[in-house]
């Protein structure tokens, strides 16, 4: 899972040379073999390294504040979202829905790595979500749809039809 995400990120960043990865431990934590130094360990650490290497620092946020917000959601992805149970997921969706109420992206008005990796992480949850739930968490759904349509992001994941045409719902149902 993590290695496919990193490979999709490499494609998004337009990197030509393929990096060498391995995994470590039961949880299959990704490890990047680094020619210039010791290997880098961890999905978030490697993703941030790739963005910097591709000279796309804005993907990590463009102010100290937004950089902290991006790191916070990347951490949320690999701690809360990746280990949550079926019960926790309702809380995650509810909180995220409230958070996204007045935002286009997780870091506000700017697309960042936080969107990419929260999208990858939440994809299986959204796939399993009943249509009514997708409408209940409408801000999450809107954000999800926006990111899956963002050029070059989706790669290894199938598209999810999340929004039904709501124009006629009040009359025809």
């Amino acid at each position, binding site marked *: *899972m993590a290695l496919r995400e990193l490979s999709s990120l490499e494609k998004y960043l337009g990197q030509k040379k393929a990096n060498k990865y391995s995994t470590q431990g*039961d*949880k299959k*934590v990704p490890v990047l073999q680094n020619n210039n130094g010791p290997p*880098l*360990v*961890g*999905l*978030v*650490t490697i993703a*941030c*390294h790739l963005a910097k290497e591709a000279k796309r620092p804005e993907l990590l946020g463009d102010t*100290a*504040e937004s*950089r*902290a*917000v991006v*790191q*916070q959601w990347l*951490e*949320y992805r*690999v*701690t809360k*979202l*990746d*280990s*949550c*149970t*079926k*019960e*926790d*997921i309702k*809380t995650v969706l*509810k*909180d995220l829905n*409230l*958070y996204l*109420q007045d935002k286009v992206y997780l870091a*506000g008005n700017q697309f960042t790595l936080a969107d990419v990796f929260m999208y990858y*992480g*939440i*994809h*299986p*949850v959204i796939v*399993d979500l009943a249509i009514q739930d997708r409408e209940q968490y409408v801000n999450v759904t809107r954000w999800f749809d926006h990111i899956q349509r963002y050029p070059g992001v989706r790669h290894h994941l199938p598209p999810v039809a999340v929004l039904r045409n709501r124009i006629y719902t009040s009359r025809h149902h």
Partner: protein
Amino acid sequence: MKLFVSEGNPHCLKALAALEATGVQCGVQFVNHDERVVPFLSRPTLPALALPSGQYLFSSNAICRYLFEVNGQECSELCDQWLEWEATVLQPALQQALHMAVLQGKSSEVSKVLQGPIDVLEQSLSKRNTPYLTGDSVSAADLVLWAGFFPVLSDSSPTLGEHKSLKAWFDRVAAMNACQSAAQKVLQGKGLQGMKSYMQRQPAPQSSQCRETQPCNSN
């Protein structure tokens, strides 16, 4: 800017130590464990930093990273890696260890649970041979890891005897004024017992042995 913290919460130890070490101007308010400070989170989550823009940071590691960056010290890749390791590997082990030590009175089991992470840290410190985790000066990673270990190492203390590099590093960070002052404010010299009311409000830790439900997206 305002930092919200609660007594006996080990994550608040990180944020307070970082605030004192960096000297960033910021108000501090002590609140109850169950106070919901971050408006969009259903569960009370502390520490929380209200940023000048009105946004909230609710991750203690992100708060520490931010305070260091505001003070002109950006997180290096090695620092990133330690922060991620702390959140994904050390914290689950610590939660289990604290649950046993504080609520079940099984302090003797603590060293077993923490053995893996302690070995990783010892090995890395002895190989690099620098006074701090990422080099010659203190980084966010040092304070975050110190604060994680502090409650368990300062109290019942799984012996660090054979872990010379870890012990030297831990004592070096613990001797900083910022760390001593933060520890006094959060634990008030009561050690592990100072965390009891905080721990009682935490859900029982998940561990690989006792997890009842599978993660929802384990593919």
